[in-house]
């Protein structure tokens, strides 16, 4: 994906997001757009993340501290899921008897 968005694009796309809020989210490192000259370049992942941040702040009324905790846990969750998916992929390539042992160990312990 080579999609790139400017600050204006983002404020227009994420309707609930105001410009000062966006700046604040960048300041506190909730979103990390790339720097380009004077401005920022946002990717699709940043927009999706900003939607999530708006859900947290608008719908769930979380304050900045709580949002920081939630977003950090979400990041860690995704890291753990990724590790697990990779582990499963590796296990899938193992011989059958090894896989069976892993399976029984897994459920047995």
């Amino acid at each position, binding site marked *: 994906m080579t999609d790139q968005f400017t600050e204006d694009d983002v404020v227009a796309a994420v309707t609930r997001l105001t410009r000062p809020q966006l700046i604040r989210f*960048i*300041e506190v*490192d909730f979103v*990390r757009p*790339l*720097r380009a000259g004077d401005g920022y370049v946002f990717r*699709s*992942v940043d*927009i*999706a*993340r900003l*939607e*999530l941040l708006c*859900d947290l702040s608008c*719908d*769930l*009324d979380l304050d900045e501290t709580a949002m920081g905790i*939630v977003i950090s846990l*979400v*990041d*860690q*969750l*995704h*890291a753990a*899921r*990724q*590790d697990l*998916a*990779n582990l499963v992929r*590796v296990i899938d390539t193992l011989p059958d008897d090894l896989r069976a042992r892993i399976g029984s160990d897994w459920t047995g312990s």
Partner: protein
Amino acid sequence: MLNDPYEALGLTRTATADEIKKAYRKLVRSSHPDLNPDDAQAEARFKAIGSAYDLLKDPETRARFDAGEIDASGVERPQRQYYRDFADASDNTYRERRGFGENVNPEDIFADILRNRARGAGTGAGTGGFGGFEGRGFVARGPDARYALDVAFMDAVRGAQTRITLPDGQNLSVTIPQGTQDGQTLRLRGKGHPGYGGGPAGDALITVTVRPHPVFRRDGDDIALILPITLDEAVLGGKVTTPTIDGPVGLTIPPGSSSGQVLRLRGRGVGGAGRKTKGDQRVELKIVMPSKPDDGLRDYLAQWRKTHGYDPRADLMKGAET
């Protein structure tokens, strides 16, 4: 497609606005796709409750729905992409980077998992520090990582937020404190190389090079600049505008000012943490002649010279060894 927004939120038609809000929040928690990334049905549920909430949270649309004027189809939320759709992408910079990256030895991961298991099974006493070899693995703080960063003059004196791109493509957010000096090293705790065996990560040490500014010069906490003034401003005095690091400021030129004379603007220099007061801005005057020779001025000065001759060089070498 939802038929009854009340049903979608698990409410009856008599629900108060507060109850609607509460019910929605509760459902967001259990249905938001980004908070429940392994739940394949979450997106559909979240869309349904979102549409229902959009309709019911506004008393006007709620009243119109209750009166049968509108149905629930008009408020369907537009398609959107959720964060979880990107979270697994290999270039996601937000994911805490560990696991099977290009530069990570998979053996480390297994070792890590085994170590964690051993730690969990252990007594829990005496963790951390070097030398915890028995059954607990080697624990050590990660090495520091060194980086160089080029910073614009203004960003250094006023403070700024920037980021550096690391060799592995990751970004590191860096706060340039107000008043950062050329050659200063910033320490970002825990942003260096990862620790061993669950030890803390090292620090990132960033050496800052401040790019020179075409107008301002830094001298400690003072800012120096050379301000061009006209001949008449020098003779008659007057109010001019000088740039400062915080924007233009009015400056009074005393009558009879000379080139090289320095005026001091208190507190217009560099400030920042650890300083009681800000530095000053020192404005050195520089008289600039009009670009075109002026006959009237020349004639006047030719006359003036006859009666007002003076020699500013008379004492120049006085006291100096020849």
